[in-house]
């Protein structure tokens, strides 16, 4: 059986599409980790609740798209702020493990809220991306994949640029390295905590809108978070660029393996990569490891 070139191209593009959404969600995870050193196991559920809030505005209240997207992002930021204030900040002085446990609890809370308000049934989001498939040369890309790739890439490009040049990026990293020292130079540490959770919730909600518009939404869509954990471990927990590259790569790899070897090999391929990276570079491809010499 000869594999056609066009097939490879189309599969690759579809994989990069999914990968860009994993990358975007990975960025949300990294923002929280960068500032607070909290491993947020609920990132997939934060994505899910964002998607449902969007469903509420666009289908429930039948708001036009230009109103429901910003409204969703604002509500998501508020949810992120409330989570930080009520569940994370009280544990600031405790060890990272207890905060990690709290985020496990957070997954159930968010799933519970969504099932209470919207029930557990899967739903479709209103169509809002252009329907016309995109042709790249001879390769055919479903329009939703193409547009969600473009939106996710644009958002990540903005975030990477902002964190590279904006002083707030340094405040985030300083806070993550040493909270007391960050306070001692005038950084508002509780403010950085709130900000990072609010921003991450916003980015995750945006990813949720895109993931939901491609594949529909359900209270189980937080499982998308599992691939995201692989992405951030491979890319490095504290590297936005790492999340971007690892997300695209793993999305591409899963699509190629699924198409040409069979769906049952997808997980095997993903976890082989994870294992190799953990052995060769335990802090991820782009992550910073602690500087030991002092």
């Amino acid at each position, binding site marked *: 059986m000869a594999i056609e070139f066009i097939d490879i191209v189309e599969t690759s593009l579809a994989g990069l599409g999914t990968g860009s959404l994993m990358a975007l969600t990975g960025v949300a995870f990294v923002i929280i980790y960068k500032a607070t050193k909290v491993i947020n196991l609920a990132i997939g559920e934060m994505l899910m609740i964002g998607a449902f809030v969007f469903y509420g505005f666009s289908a429930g209240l039948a708001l036009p798209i230009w109103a429901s997207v910003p409204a969703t992002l604002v509500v998501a930021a508020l949810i992120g702020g409330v989570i930080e204030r009520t569940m994370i900040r009280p544990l600031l*002085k405790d060890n990272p493990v207890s905060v990690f446990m709290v985020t496990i609890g957070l997954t159930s809370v968010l799933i519970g809220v969504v099932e209470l308000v919207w029930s557990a049934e899967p739903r479709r989001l209103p169509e809002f991306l252009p329907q016309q498939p995109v042709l790249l040369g001879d390769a055919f890309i479903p329009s939703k994949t193409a547009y969600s790739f473009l939106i996710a890439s644009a958002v990540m490009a903005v975030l990477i640029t902002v964190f590279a040049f904006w*002083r707030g990026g*340094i*405040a985030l*990293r*300083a806070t993550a*390295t*040493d*909270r*007391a*020292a*960050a*306070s*001692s*130079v*005038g*950084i*508002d*540490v*509780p403010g950085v905590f709130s900000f990072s959770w609010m921003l991450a919730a916003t980015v995750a909600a945006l990813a949720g809108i895109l993931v939901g518009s491609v594949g529909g939404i359900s209270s189980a869509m937080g499982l998308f978070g599992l691939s995201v954990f692989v992405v951030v471990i491979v890319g490095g927990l504290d590297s936005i660029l790492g999340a971007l590259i690892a997300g695209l790569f793993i999305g591409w790899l899963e699509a190629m393996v699924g198409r040409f070897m069979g769906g049952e090999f997808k997980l095997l391929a993903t976890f082989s990569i994870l294992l190799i990276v953990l052995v060769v570079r335990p802090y991820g491809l782009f992550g*910073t490891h*602690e*500087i030991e*010499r*002092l």
Partner: protein
Amino acid sequence: MAATGDLILEVNNIEVVYNKAIQALRGLSLAVPKGKIVALLGSNGAGKSTVLKAVSALLPMENGLVTEGRITFDGEAVEQTAPHTLVRRGLFHVMEGRRIFADLTVEENLTAATYALTGRDIAPDFDIVYRYFPRLAERRKSIAGYLSGGEQQMLAIGRALVAKPRVILLDEPSLGLAPLLVEEIFAIIARINAEEGVSMLLVEQNASVALSIAHYGYIMETGRIVIDGPTEKLTSDRDVQEFYLGLSHKSYRDIKHYKRRKRWLS
């Protein structure tokens, strides 16, 4: 000593408790006059760092609490103030062990300190840091974690310079540094005090080097002040010479004996 209006910092009879159980300070008082260097001396575990953390409001981060007494900075009470707010009002704490951001560059460390200027109409100035510490200028793009101990101490003081404070709390700047480097850094600390007009509360175990630049000194033991006075008076005091400046060759047993005797006398 000086009248209240001339004091930048005043600590009045404070008690500090850690973890609601360990009492670290017992009725401690001290004052820093504007423009002066005040040394706070004492052996390891005496409570010197605790005094500084109480003043800069960093104690709650370590589960410590000021249970009694008052602390005023430039006439205003500091209790209930967030640490970053105090920094922005001009009180800068250079913490023990330098606490530089190891995976940030030298320049990024200085940039982090520009948050101290929030709400004040002052433009960030890194040149002042590089003037006092030319060595940091050469290394401005280096990762701070790879600097030598002395350079890290310079960077820790450099962050304070960026913050344009009215008072700097310095916690053991000599820690772990070679004697020559200690002299160099203390000379610069004295210059910063004289040229920038910044008041300083200088905590040290190394009493002789601290008293060489301070105007006034306090000596503390187990949570309270035991002796204080202008530097000249302290350096000529026999007990201080013997037990803190190491000018005699008495052993630890003698010190214990001395303490016992002191308790009997008081």
